[in-house]
C-alpha cells in the first residue's frame, strides 16, 4: 500500500501534538524525497527552497574550507530537521548538506509554506515554535564547539 504523504507527515516526530488542520496545511506543501549516499540535499549559497524532515539515514552538515576540504559541523539523523534557513530572509543555505547513508525524507516546499504562513499566522507561529528549539540547540552546540571544551586548558 502506498502511504499518503499526510500519513507519513503525521508520523514524523516533528509533528507530534500538532493540530490536525496545521498538519494538513504542511502536508499540502510536502512530498517524499530520497538521496543516495554522497548525494547533496543542498549546497551553500543556493536558495532555501525546500527543507527536510529526515525519516531514515544520516546527513552531514558541511562547510568547505579551501585549506582543509569539507569540514563536518554536525550530523543529523532520523526524526530531525535538516534546513532552518528557509524561514528567515534571504532564504539561502549557509552550508552544504550531504547524505551519509541512503536518506529518506519528507521534503517541504519552502515557498509554499511561507505563503501559507503569511496567510495563516497560526501556521507561521506553529512553525516558529517548532523551529526555534533546534535553532537554539544548534546555536548552543556551536558555542560549545567554539570554546573547545575538550582542549588542554581544562
Amino acid at each position, binding site marked *: 500500500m502506498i502511504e499518503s504523504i499526510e500519513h507519513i507527515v503525521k508520523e514524523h516526530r516533528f509533528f507530534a501534538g500538532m493540530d490536525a488542520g496545521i498538519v494538513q496545511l504542511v502536508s499540502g506543501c510536502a512530498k517524499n524525497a530520497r538521496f543516495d549516499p554522497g548525494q547533496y540535499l543542498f549546497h551553500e549559497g543556493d536558495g532555501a527552497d525546500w527543507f527536510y524532515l529526515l525519516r531514515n539515514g*544520516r546527513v*552531514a*552538515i*558541511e562547510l568547505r574550507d579551501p585549506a*582543509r*576540504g*569539507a*569540514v*563536518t*559541523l*554536525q*550530523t543529523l*539523523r532520523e*526524526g530531525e530537521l535538516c534546513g532552518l534557513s528557509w524561514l528567515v530572509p534571504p532564504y539561502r543555505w549557509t552550508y552544504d548538506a*550531504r547524505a*551519509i547513508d541512503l536518506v529518506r525524507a519528507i521534503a517541504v516546499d519552502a515557498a509554499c509554506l511561507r505563503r501559507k504562513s503569511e496567510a495563516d499566522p497560526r501556521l507561521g507561529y506553529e512553525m516558529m515554535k517548532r523551529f526555534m528549539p533546534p535553532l537554539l*540547540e544548534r546555536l*548552543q*552546540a556551536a558555542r*560549545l*564547539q567554539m*570554546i*573547545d*571544551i*575538550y*582542549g*588542554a586548558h*581544562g
Partner: protein
Amino acid sequence: MADPYPTARAADSIVPPMVPRVARIAKRRREIADVVTLEIEGGAFDFAPGQFNMLTAFGVGEAAISVSGDPADGARLIHTIRAVGAVSRALTELHPGEPIGLRGPFGRGWPMQEAQGRDVIVVAGGLGLAPLRPALYRLFAEREKYGRIVLLFGARSPQDILFRDELEDWRGRLDVEVEATVDHARGDWRGNVGVVTSLISRTSFDPSRTLAMLCGPEIMMRFVANAFIEMSVPQERIYLSMERNMKCAIGWCGHCQFGPVFICRDGPVFPYSQLRGLIAKKEI
C-alpha cells in the same frame, strides 16, 4: 546511615598518607597525541571505580590521577594521563623501569551499588572516559545486575578518541549501547558530529529507572546534567566526577574545597543534587 558509595580507605591505612610509595612503571602506551597510559606492576592494588591516586614524578611534583584500569585486576595499576602542565607532562614521559611515587587510593567513587537494578547511562567527554573505565569494567563483569547499559562518548575530533579499540569492542557487544560523537571532523569521517548532549536527546530511556554517571570537562557535565534533568532523571541519580587542584588528597589542607565540600575526601564523585547550587558559580 549506610554509606551509599565506597569511601576512602587511605586514612585508615598504616602507611602515613602523605608519604608516597615508590613503584615502577611496567608499561607505557601512547593513547592519543597528548595522552599516555602507564601500567604499574608489582603491588597489591585495591581500589573502587572512580577513585584516584596521587602520582609523583620525582623531582617535579605530584598530581591527582584517576585509576583507569580494572578494579578486579589487583596486580596492575593503570592510569591514563594527559600532559597539561609540568607534573602531568613529566608523568607522561616516564618509561618502563623508571620509578614513580604513589599515594592512595583516595576519594569516593562511582555508586556501583546504587546502580544495581537500574539502567545505567555513562556519559564521558574527552579524557573523562579514563575515570569511568573502571566502572564500565565492573558493569560489564556483572552485566546481569544492571538493566540497560548505555555509553555516550564525546571527543574533540576523531584523532582525540580515547581507548578507540576498546570502544569498538564494546560497540560490538549486543548487551551494551555505545554512541560516540566528535565536535569537529573532516568530510571523510563517517561517525556522528555534534556535541555530546545531542546524543542524550537522541537516546530514549526511562528516567525513573535511570542512573547517570558523567565525567568530562565541567561545562560539559553541566549541560549533560541539565539535559538529564529536563528528561526528568532525579538529580540525586545524576553523578559526576569533579576536579580541583589537589595537595594532600585526604581532607587536611583545604586546597580542593568546593563550597562546603572537599573534592578529595567527599568526592570526586558527587550526585548533582549536592552540587547544584555550586557548579554554575564563577568564584568557587
